[in-house]
């Protein structure tokens, strides 16, 4: 019988899913993902997890529980660093310990460390994980190479439109990839905005090459990978003339956001004061609060443009768009 490896659908899953799927499948195991976040997963996560953790980490715990009795091994790597002079946030670095401490009756956990800053290569950590499944070193290395190829293909970033769209509006949504991608947690935020006829660009679409010129001007080097991505994307978008507004999707209790967001909003005021909204996700399940803020924000953007075009002094043109 093939070994089943479970990968919880949370946190860095959204960025590196394809890599790990290809890697494990090449080793001949069956990969099982937890389902998309739903009410039960969130409820269980909140119940199990340490009170002080942020919402995405709590939800991650729910995903772990969902998989715990369905798989032979759980994949919860300790991702400390994936880039030179950069770290992930302490919650992600200590994820396997947190999970093992909170969730009882776990199957065996693949929790090896990847610390690029210290070791300067990824392969060692990945091979150690492979050894938990197979003893054939060359097979593991082949699987690693195959997975890397998939990752390179994924890294072809989408082309970001930069021309001003006269008919519709373009909004940049920035935040941790898991906040933007987990549609249960963010209450279908992106779908709602698109439903109003707005074009949506996200921080996940911006490549390092685009953010580097802006990040190099930040007085102190941001050493959190996720913080760098968000700040870089935010700075990039605020310099693009076709962006009508920026939404920062944060979550309650996020340490990285608590530093990056105020810095970004300060910069925004200096560079180009366009409409800016911070949405802080928490355990609330009522959507009314989110909807009111979102609707008001989108109205504000429409209103601006209609005024710039001297169509109406107020309100009047809010519907025809």
């Amino acid at each position, binding site marked *: 019988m093939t070994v089943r490896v479970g990968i919880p659908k949370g946190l860095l899953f959204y960025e590196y899913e394809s890599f790990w799927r290809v890697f494990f499948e090449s080793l001949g195991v069956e990969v099982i993902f937890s389902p998309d976040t739903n009410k039960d997963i969130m409820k269980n996560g909140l119940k199990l997890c340490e009170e002080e953790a942020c919402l995405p980490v709590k939800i991650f715990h729910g995903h772990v529980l969902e998989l715990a009795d369905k798989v032979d091994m759980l994949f919860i790597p300790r991702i400390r660093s994936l880039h030179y002079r950069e770290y992930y946030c302490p919650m992600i670095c200590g994820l396997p310990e947190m999970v093992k401490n909170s969730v009882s009756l776990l199957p065996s956990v693949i929790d090896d460390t990847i610390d690029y800053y210290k070791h300067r290569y990824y392969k060692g950590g990945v091979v150690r994980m492979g050894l938990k499944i197979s003893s054939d070193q060359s097979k593991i290395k082949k699987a690693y190479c195959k997975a890397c190829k998939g990752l390179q293909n994924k890294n072809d970033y989408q082309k970001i439109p930069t021309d001003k769209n006269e008919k519709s509006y373009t909004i940049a949504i920035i935040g941790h990839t898991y906040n933007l991608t987990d549609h249960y947690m963010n209450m279908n935020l992106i779908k709602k905005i698109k439903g109003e006829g707005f074009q949506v660009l996200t921080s996940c679409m911006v490549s390092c090459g685009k953010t580097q010129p802006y990040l190099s001007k930040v007085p102190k080097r941001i050493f959190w990978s996720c913080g760098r991505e968000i700040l870089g994307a935010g700075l990039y978008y605020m310099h693009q003339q076709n962006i009508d507004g920026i939404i920062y999707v944060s979550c309650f209790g996020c340490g990285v956001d608590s530093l990056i967001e105020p810095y970004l909003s300060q910069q925004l005021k200096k560079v180009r004061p366009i409409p800016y909204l911070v949405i802080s996700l928490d355990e609330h399940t009522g959507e009314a609060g989110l909807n009111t803020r979102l609707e008001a924000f989108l*109205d*504000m953007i429409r209103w601006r443009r209609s005024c710039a075009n001297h169509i109406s002094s107020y309100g009047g043109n809010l519907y025809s768009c």
Partner: protein
Amino acid sequence: MMEEIYIGIDVGSVSTNIVAINETKEVVFSQYIRTGGQPLESVKYGIKQLEQAIGDKMVVKGVGTTGSGRQLSGILVGADVIKNEITAHATATLSTVPDVCTIFEIGGQDSKLILLKDQIVIDFAMNTVCAAGTGSFLDHQAERLGIPIEKFGEMALQAKKDVRIAGRCTVFAESDMIAKQQFGFSKADIIKGLCEALVRNFINNLGRGKKLEPPFVFQGGVAANRGIKAAFEKEIGHPIIILPHFNVMGAIGAAILALEYIMDTGKTTKFRGFNMMEHNFSPSTFNCTGCSNCCEIIQVELDDKVIAMWGDRCGKWTNSISS
């Protein structure tokens, strides 16, 4: 000839406000009703009052709803425009104070700060996790002190001493207040302290990092409280405008938005008419069992026919209603 009117309805957590304006945006009727946990009943009651007052002389050309109960009440009355409170309040204030730059709006359960420039909203903030900057906070403390909320403002103005009360959190404010009572401060001093705590909390929480510029307009139910007005003026060091219809501004905004929509599009109103109260209108909820999200679906029936559904994440029920 019958005068043409536009109705605005603002269904909030504490009050339900109904106004009617004429074509020149003058308020011809306004009603402030305590919601008392029964939004539909209060809307029906308000509409009935409106009909009795002016129903035979006017013809309704458009209806707009706003407030947290905007969707449900919009379906009940047949609204042409269903708008969020921020847009509604800004629209209403702009129609009377065109050069307004800052709007403070304090309602029952939420408070808003709206910044405008050249007649457009450029930024806004709403209170986040807690209610320690809203009308409910004052309501609660008034009850504790045994003073009717209507007299709160006047008493605050009679205060002789300054008392600093921690306004960060309703629970802590309460324990702070008890301590101050034991120190022998008068009720009036403590009430003034509470008003200042609320304002400080509002400015810190919502105005953080924002530049507040005059003219300032203060509206919402809490604007009736002269103590709060005084505290705001002290905090920002500038006089504050309170408009005659301060407590129904959201409804006025909704009415103006309805008027502009009808004027712009030339459509006829979807208003169900004054006799809608006779119809059997019943909202209900059930849990969808389609997936593990178990969304709570709100279903609205009119004379046993389902006319609206919402609350589902996937759109299965919302989309099942045609038209």
